[in-house]
């Protein structure tokens, strides 16, 4: 017999549920709840979509030339160091 839980408790656990970071008992209670609650099912789907979309990563590209500029700045610093150590 699966103990019922409230929507508020479900929302608190939804992130952990998506990561599979909850106990089997809690998982069973959430899944039983989803069967009967359209709102929480929608929240689960939405949160899952967010994770998928964010994971995609193409939203978060480095600016063009970032790596080159960083490397150059590092090289410049190293060159300065070498010059200083020669004095």
């Amino acid at each position, binding site marked *: 017999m699966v103990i019922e839980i409230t929507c*508020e408790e479900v*929302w*608190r656990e*939804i*992130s*952990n549920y*998506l990561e599979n*970071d909850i106990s089997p008992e809690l998982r069973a209670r959430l899944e039983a709840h989803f069967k009967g609650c*359209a*709102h929480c*099912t*929608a*929240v689960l*789907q*939405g*949160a899952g*979509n*967010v*994770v*998928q*979309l*964010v*994971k995609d*990563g*193409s*939203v*978060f590209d*480095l*600016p063009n030339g*970032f*790596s080159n*500029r*960083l*490397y150059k*700045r*590092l090289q410049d*610093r*190293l060159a300065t160091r070498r010059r200083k150590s020669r004095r």
Partner: protein
Amino acid sequence: MGVTEPQVHASEAALIERVAAGDTEAFYELVRPCERALFLAARGVVGNDADAEEIAQEAVLKAFSNLRRFRGESKFSTWLIQIALNEARMRLRKERRTLHESLDQPLREDEGDYVPRDFADWREIPLEALQRKELRDALARAIASLAPKYREVLILRDVEHLSIADTATVLGITEVSVKTRLLRARLQVRDALAPGIDGSWSLGATVYKKVRPW
């Protein structure tokens, strides 16, 4: 990724030894895998690309100068991202920009549960619709609108895939706080992306048709 934690530490340790021995190219090898995380972490704080890039560069230079201080207790990437975040926050304080929340206030967790909006009457956004560029732009705006403490966790966990433990280390908070903030971040982004009352995106784009069937 297929590389275990001990392996990561071992390969980092080897690179750091090479840097100490004068092989400075090896330092760039350490930094390269962290570039995006550095940039995004800084950008999350300062909100624009130019400052974020400068901060990322400063963080790398600072890490190089202070490499002797790195004891290998955490991953190098974790340490480097922490430096970047500190640089970003210091810069914000210096420039005294108007903040939505003061950096100097103790970071209490928000009281109470976050109540996600109820869109059960409307179709949830199907994953296929998420491919469109407009939605990607909306996502970027949604994430930018988050409070910094939620944005940082979302970026470190869901974009850069740091572990909960590493995220906690970088941000100097407990793992429980990481999970709580991640939950809020995800739910807030969901709400920010969801259709508005008349079915068009609440973020102002008029590209989308009404999602209600009637």
